[in-house]
């Protein structure tokens, strides 16, 4: 028994790590991958300069693609010796000064640049590249990876982008600029002078929405245990990552290492058989289909599977279709309805009167007084809501506002704090009628008269 528990813990640990920390395994996108790979290779070996934008929705595998290509190329000695990788992130490098400092550090030129005074940004960058050239007979090529490329567009005058593209255009030193972004209109963000220097090479990554069978296969891939041989192979590939000599591009440090794991053939086969069986059931497929309809990205599926795998414990050592369905139901649920069901009856009554007001006046904004007047009409006749003081109702109204179920109208009256009394401040409803309807139906032990009032505004 303890042995089985240890096995299970091993499986759980392996699956969790692979789902969470496998930054270099890219599935699909063979063409795009070859494209990027070729580009990087040419920069490294022939010294060609280039620029490229990688565009795709969040979670579609843009970063993974770059990492995968790097992992491939790092196996080659010539690439490792010939290139420097500079990794910038739009969220971290919030202005060009910080970015340039980081570039200097990543190119290991702090000592060379120390104590020098540069007139302009371009001069500084040119100096950095010059330093590389000075070393050998052939200069080293630099790969700039710019994550969240759209954020760099917001920097003052787009100096960094201008200079990088300018260098890549004018054959000064071989550099390759890889921009990664999820904004489709990113080209429009570039200034004219920057745009004209960009090579307009774009690679789009779009997960396909009509390949449900592949999605199921992917799901199965993510859940099955590989054989020990393939584990070793993968481990070798991962070992190459250690050759990145960069403090910043550090995913290698914490990358999931298949070499740490090995499974008994019997355990592995039992587990894999179980996974295949479960994924073939009607229930599991229905849940997966629902998830696929929601979000086709791999990241979303990994998130789902991570939670599924986390549920494994000695008492229930297998993934079952019931568990998949239960977890899928959680993903499907509407958070706002959950929150509505946690309100008190009084607060729900306010929501209902807001709904009536919105229906009658075609989603006009409302203030507390209007809603309170409508609510008191109901409260006078009802048995449950009688004798609720105005101050309590106001507090309930504020609670709705804190929960952002209703939102103050921005600008105008909302802007001047203290100018408008809170009773008269105009709000708008941030819910749909359907959500309110569902919440009223699902609310536990709601008084009948309130439920009836929710149906019709006539009292």
């Amino acid at each position: 028994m303890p042995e089985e528990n240890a096995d299970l813990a091993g499986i759980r640990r392996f699956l969790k790590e692979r789902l969470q920390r496998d930054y270099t395994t890219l599935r699909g996108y063979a063409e795009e991958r070859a494209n990027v790979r070729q580009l990087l290779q040419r920069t490294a070996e022939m010294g060609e300069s280039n620029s490229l934008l990688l565009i795709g929705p969040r979670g579609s595998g843009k970063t993974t693609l770059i990492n995968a290509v790097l992992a491939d190329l790092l196996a080659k000695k010539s690439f490792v010796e010939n290139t420097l990788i500079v990794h910038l992130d739009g969220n971290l490098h919030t202005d060009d000064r910080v970015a340039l400092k980081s570039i200097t550090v990543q190119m290991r030129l702090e000592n060379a640049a120390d104590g020098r005074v540069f007139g302009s940004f371009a001069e500084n960058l040119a100096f950095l590249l010059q330093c590389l050239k000075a070393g050998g007979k052939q200069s080293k090529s630099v790969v700039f990876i710019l994550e969240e490329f759209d954020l760099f567009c917001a920097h003052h005058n787009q100096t960094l982008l201008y200079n990088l593209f300018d260098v890549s255009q004018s054959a000064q030193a071989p550099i390759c600029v890889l921009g990664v972004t999820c904004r489709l209109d990113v080209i429009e963000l570039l200034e004219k002078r920057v745009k004209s220097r960009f090579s307009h090479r774009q690679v789009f990554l779009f997960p396909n929405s009509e390949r449900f069978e592949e999605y199921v296969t992917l799901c199965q891939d993510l859940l099955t245990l590989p054989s020990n041989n393939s584990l070793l192979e993968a481990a070798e590939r991962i070992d190459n990552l250690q050759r990145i000599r960069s403090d910043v591009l550090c995913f290698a440090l914490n990358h999931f290492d298949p070499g740490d794991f090995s499974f008994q053939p019997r355990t592995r086969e039992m587990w894999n058989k179980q996974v295949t069986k479960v994924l073939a059931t009607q229930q599991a497929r229905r849940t997966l289909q629902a998830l696929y309809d929601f979000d086709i990205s791999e990241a979303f599926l990994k998130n789902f599977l991570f939670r599924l795998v986390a549920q494994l414990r000695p008492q229930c050592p297998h993934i079952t279709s019931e568990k998949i369905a239960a977890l899928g139901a959680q993903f499907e649920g509407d958070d706002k309805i959950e929150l509505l069901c946690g309100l008190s009856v009084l607060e729900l009554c306010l929501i209902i009167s807001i709904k009536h007001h919105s229906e009658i006046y075609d989603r006009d904004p409302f203030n507390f007084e209007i809603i309170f007047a409508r609510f008191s009409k109901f409260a006078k006749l009802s048995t449950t809501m009688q004798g609720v003081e105005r101050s309590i109702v106001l507090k309930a109204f504020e609670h709705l506002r804190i929960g952002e179920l209703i939102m103050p109208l921005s600008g105008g009256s909302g802007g001047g704090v203290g100018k408008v009394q809170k009773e008269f401040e105009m709000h708008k409803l941030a819910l749909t009628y359907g959500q309110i309807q569902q919440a009223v139906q699902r609310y536990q032990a709601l008084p009948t008269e309130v439920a009836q009032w929710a149906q019709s505004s006539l009292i």
Partner: protein
Amino acid sequence: MEIICSSLETLFPCREAAVATLGELIGDSREAYPSAIYLFGHSGTGKTALTRAFLKECAKRQKVRTAHLNAIECYTTKIMLEILLDSLAPEQGDSLKADNMLDFVEQLRRWHCAPDSKSFLIAVDNAERLRDMDANVLPVLLQLQQLTSLNLCVILLSQLPFEKFYNKTGLSEVISLHLAQYNKAETQRILGSDFTQVRSQLLDQFGQDSKRLEICKEAVTEEFYNNYLNLFLSVFYKACRDVPELHLTARKCLSIYLEPVLDGSVEASDVSRLWRHIAGPLRSALTQIYMRIEKPPEEAADFAAIEDQSVRKMAQSLELPYYAKYLLIAAFLASHNAANQDKRLFVKHHGKQRKRMQTVNARAKTSDKMSTTLGPKSFTIDRLLAIFYAILEEKVGLTCNLLSQISTLVHLKLLSFVSGEQNIMDGSARLQCTIGLEFVLQIGKVVGFNVRQYLCDFM
């Protein structure tokens, strides 16, 4: 993991499922953490308490470094980063500095080589505040694991559904968990769980009075307390589901409930008679919920009577001079009537008004559009004085005494300046009246003036 869960389950009744899920996700520091967990639910559902206890257990048993901070305290990013660094690495003292996100992330990357630190947990309370901070804070926190390549998990706590956090370009995946509001049975169980504590407190309280002590010992049983809570919830539960608030009020009202039993006038088992005693005070306590007004005990007994007519009492107890009261009424009329109606309302021979279809339609307004519910409009001091002289039957001189009454009313916050506070003398200052209709009706009654008669809304 099991030890952590079982130790927390006793502390947090009715939260077994949430504890178990947290345990699955971040219970074992040897396994991969998810990059971010979003924990949401209404206030008073135990988000903070649960997380704090969980982090503490993790820190104690698995040597995980933890940080728990409240986003409200961090009005700049720098403060947040310093708090984080301080609590993640307490032994390094003030030597760690982080001016921006980049410094922070680099600092964390350096810890990778440190042998003692393995896993990190960061919890952020009031996470909705992160939206108002620098735009890069939230995306970086959600991706911190990938950026720093540490085994690190960020837990965000908030009252909002996660969809309220989405920005223009989206966020990376999080695992969101909902802490559902307690239902009535659970609330009663939680409130009843401190029975032994309440009992010992009561016994302490009556330490000197031996007769009462006897009765108290006999009467205060678990059943008695549960009966009380049942009655208490039947009044409060519809208006408030916030457990800490209910807990506080239940403690407060217990002494009133116990009073007749201690006197010997009612048997402890006679629930219906006890209900008759407690119903009034409970209802009045309902009007006070959330207010936390601490009153001396002699007053507490009859706060029922006070609260019922709070507006009337307040209006009557307001000791204003005679003219000031008229000024206040004039201000209210000026705020809630349109200026073009003044002539018809206050001039004796205003001529015949022709009824046209247009005006009839315009006036056929519904109660929701009344100016008393839409809030006060602003008026000039000239108009205020004109209305004041029109409604006051006697003649008074325009003296500085009279004008100083206006500033008194402003000081009392019954009037407020909308604009032009500096230039009162040139007449461009605009004021508005901040009191409600109820209040002004009471003032009118005191001086014998029918306010309704002069309001356009009621014609």
